[in-house]
């Protein structure tokens, strides 16, 4: 892919992401005028408007963008690593592990007083899943076979889902409801501290993945070819697996299981610009950021004050767009 075309593509996507962020700050469940929003950002005007814009809407828009970016970078990497177009950030059981952690914390009676317990429990659950899947995959053969890794991820995920159902069977109704809300994924709990935590994972994580992009390109062709062409295949697999999993874990821990974004944005970028991972990873991240902040804005305004599950809106917006894109490519 030529440098000029890549730069143009990234510029367009950056503009789209910035536009999406602006739109999601502009619109919310409470309708505020443009002037009121600008005033609120500067910290003047009605105290409730300032609180709404500065403490609720802005961090939520930014967190949506970061989660979208993390899931997209993670999904793109898994698709290369597993050479499977159906791979998404959750395919190797990260979401299952996180859900077991979160649901257990909820059912064991974590109260609203402890805001960080559930994200921490989810993150620990995700880490356990990452390690267990890797251990199982390494039990077979001398090296890490990505086909075995995929199988290990799927069975571990299935096992964790069974654990969740078991825990929920004995949960009281309130915990049950809270757990289901968590699993549907939501950005309603967004805060600046969560934004910083996410950024702490997203920025280095994405940079690592971009530096590995050449290896991932070769990897997508085949492991042997990649090895012949000088890629440190084993190291690439470990680093890619670890980084993509950590990105997904951080996103899931802070926002629950938000589906579809991580699966679809890499494909959209591939359909429009081709599958050079040096471009695809940053581009998919930007597109994911734009998509999720935009769909979250829709999720909280369409039926306000009821919030729709953001995963539902993402699929409702994303699927028609993707089908249109596929048709256009086919024509």
């Amino acid at each position, binding site marked *: 892919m030529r440098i000029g075309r890549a730069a143009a593509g990234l510029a367009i996507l950056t503009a789209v992401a910035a536009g999406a962020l602006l739109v999601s700050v502009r619109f919310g469940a409470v309708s505020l005028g443009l002037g009121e929003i600008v005033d609120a950002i500067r910290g003047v005007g009605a105290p409730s408007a300032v609180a709404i814009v500065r403490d609720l809407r802005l961090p939520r828009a930014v967190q949506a963008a970061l989660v979208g970016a993390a899931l997209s970078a993670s999904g793109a990497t898994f698709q290369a690593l597993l050479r499977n177009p159906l791979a998404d950030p959750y395919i190797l059981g990260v*979401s299952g592990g996180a859900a077991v952690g979160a649901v257990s914390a909820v059912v064991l009676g974590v109260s609203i007083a402890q*805001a960080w317990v559930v994200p921490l429990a989810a993150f620990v659950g995700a880490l356990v899943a990452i390690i267990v899947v890797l251990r199982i995959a390494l039990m077979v053969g001398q090296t890490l076979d990505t086909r075995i890794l995929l199988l290990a991820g799927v069975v571990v995920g299935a096992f964790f889902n069974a654990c969740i159902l078991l825990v929920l069977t004995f949960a009281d109704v309130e915990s049950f409801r809270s757990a289901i*809300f968590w699993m549907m994924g939501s950005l309603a709990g967004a805060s600046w501290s969560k934004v910083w935590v996410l950024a702490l994972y997203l920025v280095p994580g994405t940079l690592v993945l971009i530096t590995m992009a050449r290896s991932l390109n070769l990897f997508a062709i085949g492991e042997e070819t990649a090895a012949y062409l000088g890629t440190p295949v084993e190291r690439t697999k470990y680093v890619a697996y670890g980084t993509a999993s950590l990105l997904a874990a951080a996103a899931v821990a802070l926002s629950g299981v938000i589906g579809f974004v991580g699966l679809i944005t890499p494909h959209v970028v591939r359909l429009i610009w081709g599958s050079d991972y040096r471009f695809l990873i940053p581009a998919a991240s930007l597109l994911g950021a734009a998509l999720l902040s935009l769909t979250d804005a829709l999720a909280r305004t369409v039926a306000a004050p009821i919030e729709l599950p953001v995963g539902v809106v993402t699929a409702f917006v994303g699927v028609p767009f993707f089908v249109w894109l596929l048709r256009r490519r086919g024509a």
Partner: protein
Amino acid sequence: MFQPCRASRTRPSTAARAGRCLWACALLVLLAALGCHGGDVPNEGRAPSTAVSVEDDAGHLVVLPHPARRVVSLVPSATDVLVALGAGDRIVGRTDYDTAPEVADRPSVGGGLDPSLETLVAVEPDLVIAWAEAGPSSLRGQLEPLGIGVFGLRSQDTTDVFGAIRSLSHLVARDSAGGVLASRIRRELAAIRASTVGRPIPSVVYLVEVDPPLVAGPATFVAQIMGIAGARTAFPDLPGLWPQISLEELVRRQPDVLVLPELASLTPFVARMRNAPGWRELRAVQNGSVVQIPPELMSRPGPQIVTAARVLRDRLHLALERRPP
């Protein structure tokens, strides 16, 4: 990705279902509460003059500079308590699940567990009553920095009704109204209980779902209400709050009366129960001893537990009277 079958339900039915099932704890606890008047007021009067501080049901100390003037209630039973305390005019926001006509004109902030925070902040409350059990909600972390007090309320069983009255009346500086309300409820419940003394005690099963059968366990609010209404649960030995049981076991136990919530989704089934395999083996079905109760009565441990107990008592009595000799 995990996709539980129940999550795919539409909002109202999830809510209705969850609304139907908000209860826990044992009849013994209630009787103890009936016996001991008053109880200790949590941390009352620690702060000077107008400031109010109460420990909430999540163990968190809620401190307000003055009694709450603008309240958003995310817990429908708390809304009912506030209205009963005569503080309905201080409610500035409610949820979509509130049914009290007194607050119908207040803006809704969406669901109780997933409110729209923007809408909530826009009504400028000084106190938010939230679910104590709502785990993943970071409501407190988000609202307290904005100067909004968050009180986590436990609302599961009949003892929680008295806890809610005590805490909420203190938060809105209506302690004496709270005392009056609590003793009135205690008196009326005791009267209902007394009115059934001497009658035979029917065994009753409350079915919240029929396919598969989900019944109220002995630790639920419903089982407590049954006890007050002069009945006993046919499943005193079940673990968990709302366990799923087999139809075989239901047939084996032959409860005297089946009680179901009055829901559009269940009424057609009740109509054809006599012909339904398994269900037709139940003597209660053959005798027509199947009772339906408005779900809102059996779902909310609030001041209307009195009505719930009274309605249940009367309908059970009627069903047993109708029974062929």
